[in-house]
């Protein structure tokens, strides 16, 4: 991807980006059609690094999606550059600072992974539901509820050894978020309450509930600050190295990504979930129990959100307080979108947005571009990715006609 960017930037000098996009998509079109490829065109394809790589590695349908995905992210960064320019910054300097700040050295890389960890969890939360045809906007609330239960368990039972206490605490986080998601699934199945609205509403219910807890029943004695008692050492996610905040939560996240893959690929219930998501009627006709599947999926999706919260509390914050998540739940949607709900994609998506977050400080310091610009870029990524997805479904043919015309006239 970086190679691709470099390459494109180089070519930007003598070629408009639109023409590059034209060519890439046209080449892919030729590939997908699978026939009538001229030798010369084949040669042309081979000279293009990304086209070549994708074409060699993936079947046509996947290649399409991937290419459009990459183009979408690239376009978002391009428009982001225009925004930076508009607010008086230097896009080159800003992106360089961003890159150095997030990837420049080992420490920066580790900080990026720290930021990526909760995003991977919330990305999984969205993706689990999405695979079963549900839209879970509630990861934010699930995160808080997971954080709550993890805190409850993690700040007590200090007599347990870490090897037992930590897993139990993590499990508590999973269950806290999971139950919060389960209610959503139950309301949908039992009362036909569309999960989009209920998840949106439940986010705020959870946020106010936490606010109540840390100012009331769970407040740390003597009650000076609105926060909970600290997590005991036996429930803290250990860090890997001195001087970096990277902790075992990242490994847990990777494990969860693996389990996500395993669930949908290997388990019968995973297959059932995908059938329910793909065609609810067919699932009923095949004798599945879609209601149960949906409740289970919302439990797991909620659980992933809950783990994000537990991870933040046990790995970074060490205690529960109001607003400990800067919107990780919503960012997870972007992560899953960019990652196309695939295991590997979610990791990449998490790292992409984690890098934006961790490099943002450097960008503000060196390039004098406010860190809030990161959010603009992030929203642009979402916008371009959803627009790009629609290209693959709906307007592909129209688009191709345009590209073909443009290419024909060259």
């Amino acid at each position: 991807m970086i190679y691709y960017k470099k390459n494109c930037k180089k070519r930007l000098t003598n070629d408009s980006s639109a023409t590059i996009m034209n060519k890439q998509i046209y080449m892919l079109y030729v590939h997908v059609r699978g026939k009538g490829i001229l030798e010369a065109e084949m040669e042309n394809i081979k000279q293009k690094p990304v086209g070549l790589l994708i074409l060699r590695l993936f079947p046509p349908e996947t290649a399409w999606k991937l290419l459009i995905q990459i183009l979408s992210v690239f376009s978002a960064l391009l428009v982001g550059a225009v925004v930076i320019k508009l607010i008086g910054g230097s896009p080159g300097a800003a992106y360089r600072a961003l890159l150095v700040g997030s990837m420049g050295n080992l420490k920066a890389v580790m900080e990026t992974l720290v930021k990526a960890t909760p995003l991977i969890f919330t990305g999984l939360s969205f993706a689990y539901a999405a695979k079963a045809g549900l839209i879970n906007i509630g990861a934010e609330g699930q995160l808080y509820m997971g954080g709550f239960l993890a805190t409850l368990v993690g700040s007590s039972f200090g007599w347990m050894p870490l090897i037992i206490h930590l897993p139990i605490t993590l499990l508590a986080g999973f269950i806290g978020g999971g139950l919060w998601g389960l209610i959503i699934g139950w309301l949908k199945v039992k009362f036909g309450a569309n999960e989009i609205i209920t998840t949106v509403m439940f986010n705020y219910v959870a946020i106010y509930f936490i606010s109540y807890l840390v100012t009331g029943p769970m407040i740390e004695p003597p009650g000076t600050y609105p926060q909970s008692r600290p997590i005991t050492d036996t429930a803290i996610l250990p860090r890997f190295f001195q001087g970096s905040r990277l902790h075992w939560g990242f490994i847990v996240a990777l494990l969860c990504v693996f389990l996500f893959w395993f669930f949908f690929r290997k388990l019968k219930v995973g297959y059932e979930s995908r059938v329910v998501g793909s065609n609810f009627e067919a699932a009923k006709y095949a004798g599945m129990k879609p209601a149960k599947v949906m409740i289970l999926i919302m439990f797991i999706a909620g659980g992933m959100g809950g783990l994000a919260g537990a991870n933040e509390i046990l790995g970074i914050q060490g205690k529960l307080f109001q607003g400990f998540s800067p919107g990780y739940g919503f960012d997870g949607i972007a992560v899953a979108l960019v990652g196309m709900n695939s295991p590997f994609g979610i990791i990449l998506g998490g790292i992409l947005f984690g890098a934006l977050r961790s490099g943002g400080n450097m960008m503000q310091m060196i390039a004098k571009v406010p860190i809030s610009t990161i959010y603009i870029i992030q929203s642009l990524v979402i916008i371009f990715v959803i627009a790009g997805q629609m290209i693959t479904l709906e307007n592909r043919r129209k688009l191709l006609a345009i590209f073909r015309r443009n290419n024909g006239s060259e």
Partner: protein
Amino acid sequence: MSINILEMKNITKTFPGGVIANKNINLKLRKGEVHTLLGENGAGKSTIMNILSGLYSPDSGNILINEKPVSLNSPKDAIKYGIGMVYQHFQLIPELSVVENVILGIKQRREPFLDIKGSADRILEYSNKYNMGIDPCAMVWQLSVGQQQWVEIIKALYRGARILVLDEPTAVLIPQEIDQLFNMIRQFTAADFSVIFISHKINEVKEISDRITILRKGQKVNTVETSEVSKPELAEMMVGREVLFKAYKKKAVPGVPALVLDKIEADNSKGLQALKIVSLAVKKGEILGIAGVDGNGQSELVEVIMGLRKSTSGSVKVMDKDVTNAHPREILDCSVGHIPEDRRVSGLMLEMNLRENLILHDYHTVPHSKFLLNWKFIKEHAEKLIEDYDIRTPNSDVLAGKLSGGNQQKLILARELHGNPDILVAMHATRGLDVGAIEYVHKNIIAQRDAGAAILYVSTEIDELLNISDRIAVIHSGEIMGIVNPDNVTIKELGLMMAGSKKDTLL
């Protein structure tokens, strides 16, 4: 000589993907005539209609109204030129009242305010004139299907339509309502309105039209005066010679009853009774056809058998095992195959690949899975099925939605038949397929019969049922009118039964 109020010249429409829906269609509609477009499913009737309504624009060709060329780019244009459409799938909004539906999109006398009262009066006028019995203030969801059809017609007339296009209007009507409709049509033409009547039912076409244009595979076969053509001639033009094919079929050797329904009753989704004391027994080695006009309880019947709908009384037995209101999985596990009503709605997961579609019933059984899914076996098995059932696809990675209709149906056949089920329940198994695919489906289903399966075959096509069934049960308003032998029943008798006459009363 009356003038041509509408003329379509050399209309061609190709869909993305290269499907030619209409090729060089020429059509002349005279003032005051009923002109039928006759053709099978997929002959291109709906495309013509969508072109006339402004939803599609043709790739080439001209449309003339009152001998002046016009371009129809949106439904608004069609309305402007006096073309009124009555779609097969009603375009009414159930949550709105009759008046609101009728005046939707029409400029009002006191713009921007709705003239509910005045419009209601006008609607009542139409309703009385054509004897429709419509209450303008009723909500559309409260109306019967027949009444909704009348509202559609009022809607078209209200918009000043001089040309009425009726798309398969009789499919949802009971015989009395069909008579009522035909009376209306006669009133229209007497008032110099023109009617385009779209249908594939030769009897009614012969009854109502002045001229008939026959379409086949997107092309016009001929335009004829109704009085100068016989029904068999029409049939021949409509289906073409090659399909006067009779499924080759040995005499059935019925065995023991395998699927037994005893006095089944059930409600439809609106809570109205849909099945009334239905008793049927399908024997091993026979095909029992279920004939009837769409919406007479066929869907509910199949759903009750498959455990998808609760019966309110009676029992269902599969090979002597009582499965009344059992869970669908339990019924499927009794060696029951099911070709569902609509393959795209309930048969296939269009966004999943062929392998994943093929294991829909077997995924939870060894060797497809023990604890975990065995994709290696699943893939090999899928590839074998793809070959056995001649599904045209590069490989099993392809998404089911990318297959043609015929191949999608083969996919379902492969899934439902490969285990040689004892019982097969098939509904509209050939709907929307081309001739070759229909033949393929019939052949496979007959092969299952010969292998000893008991088959319940629901269809609305009488010819098909006469062709494939060993016995035919006719259903009307959720009641079995009688069971007949296809070899000694006339189409007329079947038609009467489908219209609600009991078999006993015919003799």
